[in-house]
């Protein structure tokens, strides 16, 4: 599973992307955010307010209750400020 990070999520985690093998019990986006917070201080700093984190699976926005099954690229980022 490829994870990609943008903006201050990227800065706080300290990397733009990584390959991660997820434990089998991680079924949803919400599970993923909770589990990532256990991976160390940088993840904790980035994801301490998970409700503010936006997530896309394979280039499409998803809600936190969305399932991860079939995903090949999961992106985590703050609310967008383009335009």
């Amino acid at each position, binding site marked *: 599973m490829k994870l990609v990070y943008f903006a201050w999520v990227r800065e706080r985690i300290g990397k733009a992307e990584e390959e991660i093998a997820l434990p089998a019990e991680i079924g949803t986006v919400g599970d993923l955010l909770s589990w990532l917070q256990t991976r160390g201080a940088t993840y904790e700093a980035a994801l301490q307010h998970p409700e503010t984190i936006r997530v896309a699976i394979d280039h499409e926005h998803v809600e936190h209750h969305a399932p991860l099954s079939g995903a090949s690229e999961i992106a985590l980022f703050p609310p967008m*400020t383009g335009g």
Partner: protein
Amino acid sequence: MSRPAAPQVRIQKGDFDIAAEIAALSTGRTDIGAVVTFSGICRDDGGRLSALELEHYPGMAEAEIERIARQATDRWPLTHLTVIHRFGVITPGENIVLVLTASTHREAAFDAAAFVMDFLKTRAPFWKKEHLKDGSKGNWIEARETDDASARRWRG
């Protein structure tokens, strides 16, 4: 009216030329009654900023803006829709984004351009970081609740 050409979406580092974009869609046509352009321009926030740095999610930026653009062409009778969004370091006074709509009637051109901008602001994967006049990096710009409210008004 004739069916719209597919929306034109471009994500690019360089600037754009509004006159050339208008000319590209209107030359030789006699069925367009209204052209609306929206240009979003980098501000210096009262002199505080030296630049904005726009980060984007390559691949998703194109895909998401195309989805927004197709919603607009499904909802309004447009002859054209062009969206150009820049990334990288952009200094005050420079263009950031262009939305260009053309239609037989003005209401469609106005409404579609405003719709696309509202959803660009809230759904296109771009993030702005401040570069300050004193040479330091500033904050990531925070999303505005008023932008979410603007996007919500198009429901139903």
